[in-house]
């Protein structure tokens, strides 16, 4: 399994993604600098990691989507290649138009870092095919702009074609306003594109992949993608 992790200026979870892919899943990881014009050959999965690409200046992800590497990431996704955007990576994918909608400022206007429960909304994806629908995972979020917005019909479209991956919920799996940490439309925490090969999520599965850390629930999502044996 060859995983390319793109480093934008200001990315700060790139090291974490390399580390987890390698040491938890035994994948081969390749560092890709954003100024590269093409992804290395033989890449199976591309990860756009979390962080503050371009300092989050202007809008999150707005400047990163124009990084030279992004053209090839778009081509790769167009060929059906698997792309995962985590947190800032999700924001970049939305700005690049690979995923619908946008991530705006948290409703509280404050940064939120904590482990939150999220509910698995579909099993029709590489990430979740081994999980049960409705399963509650505890995974950390850490963001200032995680408030998912899309037009009503876009959200309905996502729901109708089963593209919602994860929703914020209570520990018991109930999706409600009280369990919505940032104001996201329909409590959406993660989605995929219609081709079901481009994934974006605000929670950080790489932060929940080893026993000494907050939980190991994130590992189950990544396992679907990286095919490692747990």
């Amino acid at each position: 399994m060859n995983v390319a992790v793109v480093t934008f200026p200001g990315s700060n979870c790139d090291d974490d993604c390399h580390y987890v892919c390698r040491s938890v899943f035994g994948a081969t990881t390749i560092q890709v600098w954003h100024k590269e014009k093409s992804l290395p050959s033989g890449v199976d999965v591309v990860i756009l990691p979390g962080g503050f690409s371009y300092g989050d200046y202007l809008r999150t992800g707005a400047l990163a989507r124009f990084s030279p590497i992004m053209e090839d990431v778009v081509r790769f996704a167009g060929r059906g290649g698997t792309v995962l955007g985590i947190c800032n990576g999700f924001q970049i994918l939305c700005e690049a138009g690979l995923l619908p909608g946008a991530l705006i400022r948290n409703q509280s206007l404050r940064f939120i870092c904590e482990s939150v429960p999220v509910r698995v909304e579909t099993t029709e994806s590489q990430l979740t095919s081994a999980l049960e629908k409705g399963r509650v995972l505890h995974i950390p979020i850490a963001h200032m702009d995680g408030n998912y917005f899309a037009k009503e019909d876009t959200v309905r479209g996502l729901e109708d074609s089963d593209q919602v991956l994860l929703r914020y919920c209570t520990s018991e799996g109930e999706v409600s306003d009280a369990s919505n940490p940032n104001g996201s439309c329909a409590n959406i925490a993660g989605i995929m594109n219609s081709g079901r090969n481009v994934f974006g999520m605000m929670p950080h599965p790489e932060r929940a992949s080893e026993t000494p850390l907050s939980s190991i629930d994130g590992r189950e999502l990544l396992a679907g993608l990286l095919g490692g044996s747990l």
Partner: protein
Amino acid sequence: MKAKIIVMPRAEVLDPQGEAVRQGLASLGYDGVRHVRVGRYVELELDSTEDMTASATVQRMCEQLLANEVIEDFEFSVES
């Protein structure tokens, strides 16, 4: 040549900053404030070209980078 660009959250998009400002103003005693929206204001200094081209250029800049039309509207003016 100077371009002045206003980028605002679209009407249907929730504007948490605007709402926070409204509440902040209310708690300071300004309760006559009915509605607040907070957007971005961008000022560009351009190498002077003809007005027409400048307008077209700024329009493209907004579409490509300065505004995200999923959530934002923009308007601008160009002056020399």
